[in-house]
């Protein structure tokens, strides 16, 4: 039925175990230690989470919603204290709207007939539990259907209820599984809930319908293999397989109990007892361990989410920092060019304007008082011309800087952070992260999308204007008159003045030009300084993003440590509940992949015991032993052998990595999940290859 290994020797375990390995030590109560462990785990992960948020709080552009996954009630955590351990096993019915969940509730509990829908979507909108007819130790819980049009709230409520389930019964109508409901199913799988698939076969009971069900049950229940395969494929994407698959007629089962007199013929024909039987068996085998797993996973799963969010967030922060640095480099290259070109143009403006006046003195014909005022006019016009020209250059520059910044911003906004991210999930995260990814529960959605901005705050302040021009000594020195006139005569005076004017104009213009160049240089230097400080603060921002990333990476590792700790404690507790005190005491290390497997490292003797007589914990336990030095990657084989009945070969192994090959016909996603789990557990890259024969997805 499943690929999971259930060794045949389990049948004679009861007799042989004692003979081979001796009496078990008196079993201690596993619960107090487990409850304490969970409480501690909760407190410590909360603390790390608060630290991580506090680290990010001061940093602009980093969202607080890093830890929030949309559409998934990860914030729900069961209370640790005050739990009634004698409460019945909680069986949650889940499925698409109109799948027949409420009919099934009625059939299984003999109550709440009014919940059965009338052919419309979203008839039952609440979560409701009632004791099962077959066992007082089983409680059946009905939930709103998932995947109804506009029913996101219903899905949310159903998933919340499922998180608090010991077993989920996935009720699927006989026709198909739709995309929306498949997503919910996969999510359940990823979280690790044990799932019994109930195919609710449709057949109207009116008219000859009832007769059809009674006479030709194969027409009603048969030919569902395609649908079951499809459901299994979806689950496989989450790395899990159904606990059981049953075919029922929920409405028939409900109608059989509609009257005071139970219609046993109809009851039997509905095959509802297949489901009840599966549940009773499950209760008998795993009631206590399921309870423990429900409690642990309620805390473990959000913590795992937190660890992944933190490491993904750190990755994203690093990518953001890298992009920011590249963008900063780009924008400043563009701005430097703009400033340089403007500087060149401004210097040219000065040269042109001053150059045009080089021969001013030649136009002077009247060397009387008018010379000075003419010259003043000329200088005023030069100042005016330059002030206007230079100011225009600067205002153009301001605008160009603005638009260059905007253009760079727009251009880099098109660059996906993926271009910079390493996207290499560490082995530990990859188990969880890849399960999410394969189940198409976007990893990205778990991580905040952070704003790209914050590298240059708006336009660069450019309060530059050359008002009135430089105030250099630009006046001609007064021309001496009287004395010269006596000694030189009027013509001599004229000549002398002409020479004086000619002599003075050049240097004055030189001074003027120099003065203007200086002003231009000063203004542009100020601007360059401003840009340089913008650049520095951009670099600082990038740096602080990287610092935060480093912090988050640490926090993430801290959470992982806690998860390792709780995995070990959980495994111990489960073994104890299973009556395997000896194993419980000898487990040294454990890696859990909820719903998939527990990889547990045992002391030598216990390893053999676990290998010969694997405990039945409700989750596959694959035992291994501490590796010899350099044999870490090869040690994966021991665990793998417990994962699938078909067996594995160690195709290639060295001290760095190993490749395992199996002939088992396994879905890719399950194999990859196992590879990830092994990789995380032994700390070396382990790859499982299948010699696949059929075309599993």
């Amino acid at each position, binding site marked *: 039925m499943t690929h999971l290994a259930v060794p045949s020797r389990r049948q004679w375990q009861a007799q042989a175990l004692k003979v081979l390995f001796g009496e078990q030590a008196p079993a201690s109560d596993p619960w107090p230690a487990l409850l304490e462990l969970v409480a501690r785990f909760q407190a410590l992960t909360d603390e790390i989470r608060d630290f991580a948020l506090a680290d990010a709080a001061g940093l602009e552009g980093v969202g607080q919603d890093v830890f929030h996954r949309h559409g998934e009630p990860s914030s729900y955590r069961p209370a640790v204290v005050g739990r009634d351990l004698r409460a019945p096993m909680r069986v949650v019915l889940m499925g698409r709207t109109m799948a027949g969940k409420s009919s099934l509730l009625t059939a299984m509990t003999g109550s709440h007939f009014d919940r059965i829908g009338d052919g419309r979507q979203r008839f039952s909108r609440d979560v409701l539990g009632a004791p099962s007819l077959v066992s007082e130790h089983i409680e059946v819980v009905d939930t709103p259907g998932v995947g109804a049009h506009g029913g996101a709230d219903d899905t949310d409520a159903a998933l919340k209820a499922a998180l608090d389930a010991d077993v989920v019964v996935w009720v699927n109508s006989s026709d198909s599984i739709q995309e929306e409901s498949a997503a919910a199913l996969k999510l359940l799988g990823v979280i690790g809930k044990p799932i019994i698939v109930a195919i609710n076969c449709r057949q109207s009971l009116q008219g000859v319908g009832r007769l059809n069900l009674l006479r030709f049950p194969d027409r009603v229940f048969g030919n569902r293999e395609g649908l079951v395969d499809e459901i299994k494929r979806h689950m496989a994407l989450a790395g899990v397989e159904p606990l059981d698959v049953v075919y029922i007629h929920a409405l028939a089962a409900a109608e059989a109990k509609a009257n005071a007199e139970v219609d046993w013929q109809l009851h039997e024909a509905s095959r509802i007892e297949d489901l009840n039987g599966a549940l009773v068996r499950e209760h008998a085998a795993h009631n206590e361990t399921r309870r423990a797993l429900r409690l642990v996973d309620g805390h473990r799963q959000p913590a795992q989410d937190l660890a992944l969010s933190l490491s993904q967030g750190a990755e994203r922060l690093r990518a953001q920092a890298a992009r920011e640095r590249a963008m900063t480099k780009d924008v400043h290259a563009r701005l430097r060019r703009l400033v340089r070109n403007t500087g060149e143009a401004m210097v040219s403006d000065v040269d042109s304007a001053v150059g045009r006046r080089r021969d001013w003195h030649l136009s002077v014909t009247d060397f009387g008082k008018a010379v000075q005022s*003419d010259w003043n006019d000329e200088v005023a016009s030069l100042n005016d011309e330059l002030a206007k020209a230079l100011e225009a250059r600067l205002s153009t520059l301001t605008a160009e800087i603005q638009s260059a910044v905007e253009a760079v911003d727009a251009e880099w906004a098109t660059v996906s952070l993926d271009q910079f991210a390493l996207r290499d999930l560490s082995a530990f995260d990859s188990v969880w992260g890849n399960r999410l990814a394969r189940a198409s529960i976007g990893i990205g959605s778990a991580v905040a999308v952070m704003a790209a901005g914050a590298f240059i705050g708006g336009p660069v302040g450019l309060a530059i204007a050359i008002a009135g021009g430089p105030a250099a000594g630009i006046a001609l020195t007064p021309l001496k008159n009287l004395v010269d006139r006596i000694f030189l005569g009027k013509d001599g005076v004229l000549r002398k003045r002409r020479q004086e004017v000619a002599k003075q104009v050049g240097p004055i213009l030189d001074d003027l030009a120099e003065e203007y160049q200086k002003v231009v240089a000063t203004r542009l230097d100020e601007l360059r300084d401003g840009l340089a400080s913008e650049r520095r603060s951009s670099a600082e921002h990038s740096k602080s993003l990287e610092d935060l990333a480093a912090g988050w990476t640490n926090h993430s590792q801290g959470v992982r440590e806690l998860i390792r700790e709780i995995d070990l404690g959980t495994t111990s507790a489960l073994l104890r509940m299973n009556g395997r005190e000896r194993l419980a005491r000898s487990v040294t290390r454990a890696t859990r992949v909820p719903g998939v497997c527990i990889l547990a490292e045992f002391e030598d003797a216990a390893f053999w015991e676990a290998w010969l007589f694997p405990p039945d914990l409700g989750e596959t336990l694959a035992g291994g032993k501490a590796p010899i030095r350099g044999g870490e990657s090869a040690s994966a084989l021991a665990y793998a052998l417990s994962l699938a009945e078909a067996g594995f070969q160690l195709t290639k192994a060295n001290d760095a990595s190993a490749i395992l090959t199996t002939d088992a016909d396994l879905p890719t996603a399950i194999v990859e999940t196992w590879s990830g789990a092994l990789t995380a557990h032994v700390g070396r890259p382990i790859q499982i290859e299948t010699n696949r024969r059929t075309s599993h997805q």
Partner: protein
Amino acid sequence: MTGNLFKESAAAARVLGEELRGVIADLDPAVAQPLLDRLSVEAHPTPLLVFTGYHSSGKSTLIEALTNRAFNVPIGSGVTTDEVSEYDWEGDVRLVDTPGVHAGRPQHDERAERALQAADLVLFAVPVELFDDTLVAHLRDVLGRLGKARQTLIVITKAGTMAAAPGHREAAIKDALGPFNLVPWVECDAQYYLDGLDLADSSPADSAAFIEASGLSAVASLINTFASRQGEMGRLSQPLQLLLAIALEASASLTDDPNEQAALNVLARQRSALSKKRIHLDTLLDARSAQFRADAVRAATLFADSIEREEQQDGGLGDVSLEGHLANLNEGLRVALERFEAAVRQVLEAQFDDLASEVLEIEASPYGRVAVQLGEVEPAGFDGRDVVIRPGATPATAAPGWTSDLSKYLKQFNKFWGAGDGVKAAAGSNGHKIVVKVGHAFGKKFQPWEAVKTANKIGKAAKVGGAAISIGLEAYGVFADERAAVKAEHARSERRRSITQEILAQADAIVADGLSTVRKDLDDMFKPEFQRIDEMANEVRDAVSGRSQLRERLERIEREAEAALRKLAGSAH
């Protein structure tokens, strides 16, 4: 009358700019805002036409005629325009009417002076009575000191009021221009034109005859020649080029296809880099010209100084020493020209190097990377390491049909503009070619000043000066002969002016000639590149079948801007 290109291209830029603004406003605001910002801030200076000349020389009438009576310019007898009046021709062109020149000094008031300095074109009005000394001085002041020899048109304004025998006016103008003999002139009668406009309804035949006789279309077409000469990439075409670049960028935002978007953005950035560089080159070359002129003036001043010094010391100027001074002058001018040539080469080298590095930067930018990778040119990698797991990877799409053309185009562009190791190192690049060509551009040199020719020009003054100085040796005679001496001094000033003007005229001719060759070479390089960019952009855009209304509007704007540019270029020949 032929349309006015100053007005038309400015109007085209204004109208198309408004339309483009309208199109952009309909785009996604995130994309639109930077484009709008750019469109509004890179506002261009409106072309400035300045009218100068004598009082009552018909400047105001000419303005009315040229603008088809867009303004009601007050016209009366006597001094009609006492101060500078400015007319805004529909926001596209500014017309400045200066008061006429005053006798006594060739300069006039400050506002007129500034207007003349900033003028894109000076229309120098000359009455049928032709020139007197004051007007000649004013003309030469505008041409020489204000450096408007290449931007002045002499208009004989009231041709209808007096007939003149052929050649007279030409001779008078030639005489007045002196060394600036390349300045064009034209005669017209603006009043006839206005009369013709008045008669248009009542008597169409007479109207046509008046308009024909006015000769105003000749004026208009000469004005257009000036407009064209401002260059394909000059001030007039600048706003149109800007429009084209922004329109190209806007069209990039109309597509959802990231490849198309990247390719168009790269093209737009390349286009804008080229047109900005072209304008920047003009600015820098103008400044080098101004420095060259200053060097020439300095050489002229040294020459005049040395002659005068010798005249004073020795009482005359010997032929041998004149030869020496001339040799110094010629050497000074040669050095000035050499410096100019070197400066031009240096400007070109530096700017093409800068352009090359910008081209590489464009290719290295995010959009450039996409475009380059599309084109399968060896991409410069991001620093990031290889991808291991790709959650949410974007599906690979097939490369668009234009990738191979884009690849060819980018290779070509990189080869011609982006030689990153410096202009000199890259023999195939445009920068290298044009720098090599600079030497040929300055084939024209200063004509050596020769003793015989120069002596005639400066001799008169020298003689007067010599006489004056010999008389002035006696203290008593100073007052007695002061009148003659002052006259001689004035003559010396005049000689100085004429020497300088002669040299400046040559310098201007060299600048005009050399720079027009350089500019033509530049245009020969830039224009086809713009065409290639536009063709590539069209190919990219045409690959998409759906044509939105916004795209139609953008393309219409582009077509019209291109047409306006073509028209502007067309009348240059």
